[in-house]
């Protein structure tokens, strides 16, 4: 078992199960917060993440296979996905792969939303593109169930902000394509959610449009 990444809320280890590489995600104790709150959050997220990863697959979105969930140690053992993080791809100058990936993101987010799954943390760090062109969504720790337009809107709004903050050179073009892809699955809702995103932005602090 080798530590490969110290994430914000979990340690990721690479290990082997029946000769196959597996990823072990362990939500570690956060000493900055109260024990009661810490355990509650870790246990809730571990269970929900495993469930949502599984459901996302039935919705048609590539996610890692779950092998084992251990609530006691806040651990999920899952398939190890080999590919390039979208964060790296989007940091390069705009080209064809941005167009395809952006549309695919939008399509897959809509597939989730259609099954009432909200990812909750759509960033380019949480998407992996494999060699055969599959886009894996990972990290469903902040995910939940909802069919509310508001929750769908926030899901996409967070993605928009993740793009503008981390990939400002390509953000606007990419997000437009994300919405295009979204509308190929959810046509009418796609229009509504676009309006909703604007509303959420205006509700935030210091948006000129609000006046």
């Amino acid at each position, binding site marked *: 078992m080798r530590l490969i990444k*110290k*994430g*914000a*809320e979990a340690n990721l280890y690479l290990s082997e199960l029946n000769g196959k590489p597996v990823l072990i995600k362990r939500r570690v104790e*956060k*000493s*900055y*917060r*109260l024990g*009661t*709150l810490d355990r509650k*959050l870790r246990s809730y997220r571990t269970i929900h993440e495993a469930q949502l990863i599984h459901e996302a697959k039935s919705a048609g979105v590539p996610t890692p296979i779950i092998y084992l969930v251990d609530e006691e140690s806040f651990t999920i053992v899952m398939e190890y996905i080999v590919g390039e993080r979208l964060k790296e791809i989007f*940091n390069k100058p705009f080209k064809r792969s941005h167009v395809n990936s952006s549309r695919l993101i939008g399509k897959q987010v809509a597939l989730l939303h259609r099954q009432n799954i909200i990812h*909750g*943390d*759509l*960033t380019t*760090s949480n998407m992996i593109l494999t060699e055969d062109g599959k886009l894996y969504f990972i990290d469903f720790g*902040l995910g939940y169930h909802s069919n509310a337009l508001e929750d769908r809107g*926030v899901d996409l709004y*967070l993605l928009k*902000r*993740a793009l*503008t*903050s*981390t990939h*400002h050179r390509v953000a606007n073009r990419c997000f437009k394509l994300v919405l295009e892809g979204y509308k190929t699955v959810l046509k009418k809702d796609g229009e509504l959610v676009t309006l909703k995103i604007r509303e*959420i932005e205006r*509700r*935030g*602090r*210091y*948006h*000129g449009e*609000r*006046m």
Partner: protein
Amino acid sequence: MLCLGIESTAHTFGIAVASESGEILSDVRAVYKPPTGSGIHPREAAQHHVQIAPKILQEALRKASVRAEEVNAVAFSMGPGLGPVLRVGATVARALSLHLKKPLIPVHHAIGHIEIAALTTGLRDPLTVIVSGGHTAIVAFSNGYWRVFGETEDITLGNLLDALARKLGYPSPGGEKIEELAEKGGKYIDLPYTVKGNDVAYSGLLTAAVKKLKESAEVEDVCFSVQEIAFAMLVEATERSLAHLEKKELMLTGGVAANRRLQAMFKEISREHNAVFKVVDRRFTADCGAQIAWTGILAYKAGVILNVSESAVKPRWRIDQVPIPWRGDGICV
């Protein structure tokens, strides 16, 4: 060179004189106190500022041992903030600029919080958390702008603490009082914890806390739990950004930065991620002229100068809309 900076966005009217080498030669302020139990009234705050302005100006110059004519530039907080209050600062700044024939420099209030923190901590490229009455945002500099990685989707951390203090009958700003009460509490009360990606939302927490007070939960325990939950939310969102950006410096600034519990929590995550953690000098946590005067120096040297005719205040000026020519290209993420 010397820059005179005028802060006037909310409760505080402050004037300071800063030098090019980063010395704050004077920093004088007066704080409008609304009647206990009520929030800031923009018009009354503006009247307070109008009345106090001449005295603050004289004091600032006297303490700096500087004559008005020796000042090289006049900076003011152009936004964001309350319109009537912003206009007081802007009017004083325009008058001084025209009278002294010295350039007028626009400063974004939150950029002021960042730059005074950078000056006093010596950090160069920090992931920065701004916590005040007007802002709760996680920002990092990249390619000419401070980019927002996470922020509140409704009220700020300062709003939350002030509103809770008002409910308990204490004057605003009430963060210090809440901290004092929280230190006496210790029983954890379950309240909504809302993190959305790198964003937080506090209005649900406020509503639930007020409800608990009505149900006669112990005041100290409510304050304790509100702090624990509200801070943990922001620290979690910050840790996500820290891991995402892999920054090696973490900086805390703004009025709520004075809170010791919040500082301790940020210290923990910076240790986890091998980042240096520093907090703005305690003298400059709250709104002050110094943050405007020093940012004014940086802006002036980078050629940011305003015509009086273009100096209308911007009550809703977003931090990520402000070009920052003095920080170069910055590190690209």
